């Protein structure tokens, strides 16, 4: 009697399903989310730069907008995203070339700490300048 | 009735799968029915010892001869499922040492290549052995993986046209007059029952053989006995280590992958499915095992397993006395046609058992094809899953 098993449902949302997962998986989720965020930012950034081609007034309007606290806060998020992605990227490159594999978890924590430290420092710097 | 086969084999343990392989090679259309996963019964919870026959060389000549014969055959046909590191029989006390000559004679008379080796040498090979051992004999024991053992036979049977129905439980035998004409199965995937027809049904359900035979109102003298095995979280020996004496509780330590497994005890059970492991049996395993390999006590227990095993013969009081040699029953003698039972035996001798029962099956079905399982090299166990 032909009875078909329940097929595997391939769901991209599983990339972010944290149930039962451990720290390495969290790093992978952060990597993936920051990647998507940074790609969107990159294209947004390039589009905004087109204001430079429009002329001085257009650009200086944008500069004024960019100095509003809300945008500055987004800048902090951006910097944290870059730090997390970049530092974990260093880790992935190193272990991918077989370097420091037994210490990959330690590297992960170091990356996290550096992200937080530099994230806070840059937040302080950004908001200090506006005062 | 959904389909009719020449033969239905009930049970996908070592005997059932080897029988399926034998019959498929002889060109019969057959299906194997198993109520759970392949090897999830007696065969799975196996000591994994590929017997050289040494264990029975003194007490059971016939069994020992079967073992060494099948051992040497399996080495030829099962290319990817055996750890072949030989075995040692070690003398722990004077009585063991006194047994040595009897043992060597027994091995010689059974055709088991056995070599008396100096204690110093044995300790060099196996540094975890009790340094106080008094003697050691090397025999061609080995280790198999019971699940892959069965998969290899099934993979080859499938290649030769057999089908396999796991998660199907036989809930009745179909009778036409005084002859079995098929089985009624419960498909555990759907919860539905249906019938499968066959010219002949082979009951290869080990300790459960009596349960299946009862569907045809015949009695099978199978005595379900349980034995405890204790798996230790470290591999402490490369070769199988046996106590150099008559078979006894806790007298063998079988290495496999990264574990050493101590075995075994023996007690009679009434319900083959409800086996509760007595803690004192576990303690006994460690107590006896450490006489041969003291470090067994220092490493944590990884798992304890027990399962019903089929012993054939007189329903006597002392279970270990009963021969472990298998028995095949043609139930025509009980007045039921087209129904045979094969039970007892050891995984090591599964191929030989399959040969004997397949000869009976073929004679009954008028098939003249000879057995070829001695020569045909088995498929890789992995190809069982080449759907």
């Amino acid at each position, binding site marked *: 009697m032909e009875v078909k098993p329940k*097929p*595997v449902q391939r769901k991209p949302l599983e990339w972010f399903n944290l149930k039962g997962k451990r720290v390495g998986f969290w790093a*992978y989720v952060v990597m993936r989310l920051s990647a998507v965020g940074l790609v969107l930012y990159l294209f947004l950034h390039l589009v905004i730069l087109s204001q430079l081609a429009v002329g001085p007034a257009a650009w200086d309007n944008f500069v004024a907008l960019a100095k509003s606290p809300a945008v500055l806060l987004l800048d902090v998020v951006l910097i944290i995203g870059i730090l997390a992605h970049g530092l974990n990227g260093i880790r992935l490159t190193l272990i991918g070339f077989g370097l420091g594999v037994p210490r990959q978890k330690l590297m992960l924590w170091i990356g996290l700490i550096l992200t937080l430290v530099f994230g806070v420092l840059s937040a302080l710097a950004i908001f200090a300048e506006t005062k | 009735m959904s389909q009719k086969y020449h033969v239905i084999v009930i049970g996908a343990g070592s005997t059932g799968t080897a029988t399926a392989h034998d019959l498929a090679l002889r060109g019969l259309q057959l299906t194997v029915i198993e109520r759970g996963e392949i090897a*999830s019964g007696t065969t799975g919870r196996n000591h994994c010892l590929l017997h050289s026959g040494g264990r029975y060389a003194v007490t059971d000549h016939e069994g020992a001869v079967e073992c060494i014969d099948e051992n040497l055959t399996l080495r030829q046909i099962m290319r*990817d499922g055996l750890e072949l590191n*030989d075995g040692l029989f070690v003398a722990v006390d004077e009585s063991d040492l006194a047994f040595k000559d009897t043992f060597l004679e027994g091995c010689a008379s059974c055709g088991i290549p056995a070599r008396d080796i100096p204690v110093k*040498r044995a300790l060099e090979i196996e540094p975890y052995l009790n340094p106080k051992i008094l003697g050691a004999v090397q025999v061609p024991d080995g280790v198999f993986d019971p699940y892959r053992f069965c998969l290899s036979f099934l993979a080859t049977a499938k290649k030769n046209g057999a089908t396999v129905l796991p998660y199907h439980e036989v809930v009745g035998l179909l009778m036409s007059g005084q002859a079995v004409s098929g089985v009624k199965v419960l498909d555990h995937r759907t919860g539905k029952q249906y019938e499968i027809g066959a010219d002949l049904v082979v009951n290869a359900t080990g300790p459960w053989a009596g349960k299946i035979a009862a569907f045809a109102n015949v009695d099978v003298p199978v005595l379900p006995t349980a034995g405890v095995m204790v*798996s230790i979280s470290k591999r402490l020996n490369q070769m199988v280590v046996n106590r150099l004496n008559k078979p006894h509780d806790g007298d063998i330590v079988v290495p496999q992958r990264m574990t050493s497994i101590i075995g075994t005890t023996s007690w009679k059970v009434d319900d083959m499915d409800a086996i509760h492991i007595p803690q004192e049996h576990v303690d006994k395993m460690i107590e006896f095992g450490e006489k041969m390999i003291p470090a067994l006590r220092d490493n944590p227990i990884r798992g304890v397993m027990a399962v019903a095993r089929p012993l054939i013969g007189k329903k006597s009081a002392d279970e270990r006395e009963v021969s472990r040699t298998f028995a095949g029953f043609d139930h025509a003698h009980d007045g039921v046609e087209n129904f045979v039972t094969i039970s007892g035996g050891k995984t090591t001798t599964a191929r030989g058992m399959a040969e004997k029962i397949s000869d009976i099956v073929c004679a009954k079905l008028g098939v003249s094809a000879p057995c070829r399982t001695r020569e045909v090299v088995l498929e890789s166990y992995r190809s069982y899953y080449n759907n």
Partner: protein
Amino acid sequence: MKLNLKIYRYKPGSEPHYDTFPVDVPETANVLDAIERAWDDLDRTIMFRHACHHASCGSCGLLVNDQEKLPCVTPVKDYGEGATLKIDPMRNMPVITDLAVDASPIYQRMALIGLPIIRDAETLRADGKEPLPEGLEAFRRFENCLECGLCLSACPVMATDPQFLGPLTLAAAERLLAEPRGVDIERIYRLVDDEHGVWRCHSSFECTEACPYEVYPGEAIMRLKRKVGLRKIKQFFGGA
């Protein structure tokens, strides 16, 4: 020790659900013993894969509280008296019924890479120089990998990419490159140097976390990436 097993139930054609079974097992029991208890005492229709009960066959892998476990060597003690254990079939494999998955994705992968199951044993003595008994060329043993598939279940890439070779396969490739045993090395390189081979791995190390038998595929894949990557770079610059 009293436990509740909340077991995933699925029969083709009907909706999956959970049934909860109260069981009482010895303190020394493993999770598989508890499942067998529920099967034996309460419901003979629970289907689950098992054979050897000592982490050798690799057939019983499943999820306990959403984590990949080999229940035959997972002590119930880890979960404590009165705990409720949620038991699910492995991920990323077709479910035949209840906890029983179709293991083809595991075995077909291993068949593809062709890792022989027999390897040379690390002999017990540290110096490895003790003489072998007559008649034996080397001490042999089974490979560590049980082909249980827990790593395939845990891998986030496997969740969406059935073409991915998978953790156990890549770990097997790494073993083969280290100890070829007559297998065609170039074929192994061709298999793993592919978008859906070694490069698809995103290093979440969930496979390593799941591995019950010290194969640690995550680390093996990193070694493999290094081997394959450096070889490619060397060849690109004209090296052999």
